[in-house]
């Protein structure tokens, strides 16, 4: 059974009676112990889709369509209280900013054991022992002393390790990591991603890794889902996507990643234009104003996602894409 299956998810912004669609028809799925990378620029709807899964989209936003099946249950059928019971114990989340996602006036120990005591019903001592074990597992030295420390006393990388420990504390089945390394030093980024991916695999936890950096996800994910302007444009196994990107946007993204093997003097290839304002209404394919292969059809009709080998791609001209990136 698929752990998480999101189908045709639509999220609307509702303001003064007007509706504006921010996420259109997003579909993706994750299996236990597997990692799905959701890649996209700011405003592509990737974080929003994750928040919809955990049932915490902000006021003024509304899930307008689609289904979210988690562990065999339809999440839209759950009431607020059942959804709250699911959070932490079944689905956990790791945020972008480790500096601000820990409560500054509570000790690491208090924040780490809180969920275990409430959700797993552990005693103070059992929770403490488990906390020490978790801190060791995420690679924090001297865990006993750390429990007494406060967030401002430890470094950013270590805070993110603590966040990972908190996310794992109640043995969730799924972790949503929203750009977990964006705020960290480049040298720490790899370590943290590696850690999250390894722990999820070891514990059989499904992982949705949200990022805007297509380059870093290749090593840590099995599947990649590329979002653009609120739509999923391409989904494929990671290895396949890198070798044989079909959607012009994916190809543009890959072409803009700097490589050591690149000849000196050749510049990076940028994607022309800027990502669309989520509030802007663009007819047809949302990428067509920036797409080098756009045709008449692209500006008129929204492309339908279809299978192309191992890919799912939403582009009218995907067949034209030659595997030149290989």
């Amino acid at each position, binding site marked *: 059974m698929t752990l998480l299956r999101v189908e045709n998810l639509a999220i609307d912004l509702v303001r003064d009676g007007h509706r504006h669609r921010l996420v259109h028809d997003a579909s993706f799925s994750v299996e236990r112990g597997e990692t799905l990378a959701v890649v996209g620029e700011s405003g592509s709807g990737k974080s929003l889709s994750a928040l919809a899964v955990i049932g915490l989209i902000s006021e003024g936003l509304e899930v307008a369509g689609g289904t979210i099946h988690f562990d065999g249950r339809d999440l839209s059928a759950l009431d607020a209280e059942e959804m709250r019971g699911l959070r932490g114990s079944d689905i956990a989340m790791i945020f972008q900013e480790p500096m*601000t996602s820990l409560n500054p006036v509570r000790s690491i120990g208090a924040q780490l054991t809180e*969920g275990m005591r409430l959700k797993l019903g552990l005693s103070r001592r059992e929770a403490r022992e488990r906390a020490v074990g978790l801190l060791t597992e995420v690679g924090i030295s001297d865990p006993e002393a750390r429990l007494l420390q406060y967030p401002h006393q430890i470094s950013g990388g270590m805070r993110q390790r603590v966040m990972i420990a908190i996310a794992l504390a109640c043995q969730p089945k799924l972790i949503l990591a929203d750009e977990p390394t964006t705020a960290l030093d480049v040298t720490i980024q790899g370590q943290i991603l590696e850690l999250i991916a390894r722990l999820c695999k070891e514990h059989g936890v499904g992982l949705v890794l949200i990022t805007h950096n297509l380059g870093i996800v290749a090593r840590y994910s099995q599947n990649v889902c590329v979002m653009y302007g609120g739509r999923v444009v391409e989904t494929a196994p990671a290895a396949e996507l890198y070798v044989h990107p079909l959607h012009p946007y994916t190809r543009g993204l890959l072409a803009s990643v700097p490589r050591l093997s690149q000849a000196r003097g050749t510049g990076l290839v940028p994607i022309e234009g800027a990502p669309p304002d989520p509030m802007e209404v663009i007819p047809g394919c949302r990428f067509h104003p920036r797409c080098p292969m756009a045709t008449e059809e692209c500006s008129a009709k929204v492309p339908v996602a279809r299978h192309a080998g191992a890919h799912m791609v939403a582009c009218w001209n995907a067949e034209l894409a030659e595997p030149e990136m290989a």
Partner: protein
Amino acid sequence: MTDAALDAPALPKRRSRLRATLARDRKAQMGLIVLALFVIGAVFAPWLSPGDPNDMSMDMMSGLSWAHPLGTDDLGRDLLSRILHGTQVSLFIGVSTVLIALVIGVTLGLIAGYFGGWIDLVIMRYIDLQWAFPNFIIAVYLVAVFGTGLLNVIVAISLAFIDDFARVARSMTLSLREEQYVDAARTLGFSDLRILFIHILPNATAPIIVQATVSISYAILGEASLSFLGLGVDADTPTWGLILADGRGFISQAWWLGVFPGLAIMLVVLSINFIGDWLRDALDVRQSI
């Protein structure tokens, strides 16, 4: 490991933090000593007093002497005895009214700020209504309607302070609820009340403590003012305000009737402010000690 470089020693526990900050804070030390003396004076008033606070004698408005260390008032009552007995009532009213106002006001403010919408609207319209009147007018009004007496004075002063606490708590909650650690707590499935009281409230303690210490001072002064106007506890119970009020007609003949109760009020209010400053610093774990 790279990120173990920024090692800091484990923080001392809260109690040793309080002790460590106190050791450097002269004003707080003085405040604690002075307040402790007043508390001892209040508790042991019956034994420390030279006489009964309400015993009249023919020795009226006599100056400072061995028999009457702080002199006597216009009815020949011993001033030291009256001030010591008055300490009980004044301190009790100061602390209890602020505790009541703090609990009710902070709860209202937290709820209004966190839930927003119509809940916020209803609570804040009430608070605005109360805010429109000076605290003291509200207290006077309540005592005038419900009558004098210890309980009524406490209720009147507590109610008058609720709006101050509610406003402080609400404004803190409005900004704190947007913090990412509050979102993080939500993703862990904690209940709203838990988030409100365990995750948000501890971050709002500093301004609430400041408000509380200021309010204790005002509550003591408020009781003094009510007594001064004859709306206090009752005529037989000596309180600092009542002693001042009784003595005001004779200040030109007997200076001690104004100076000593006034001095008592000032010392206690000042001590409490110093202690409040110390608590605010000591409880802020982000501040190094």
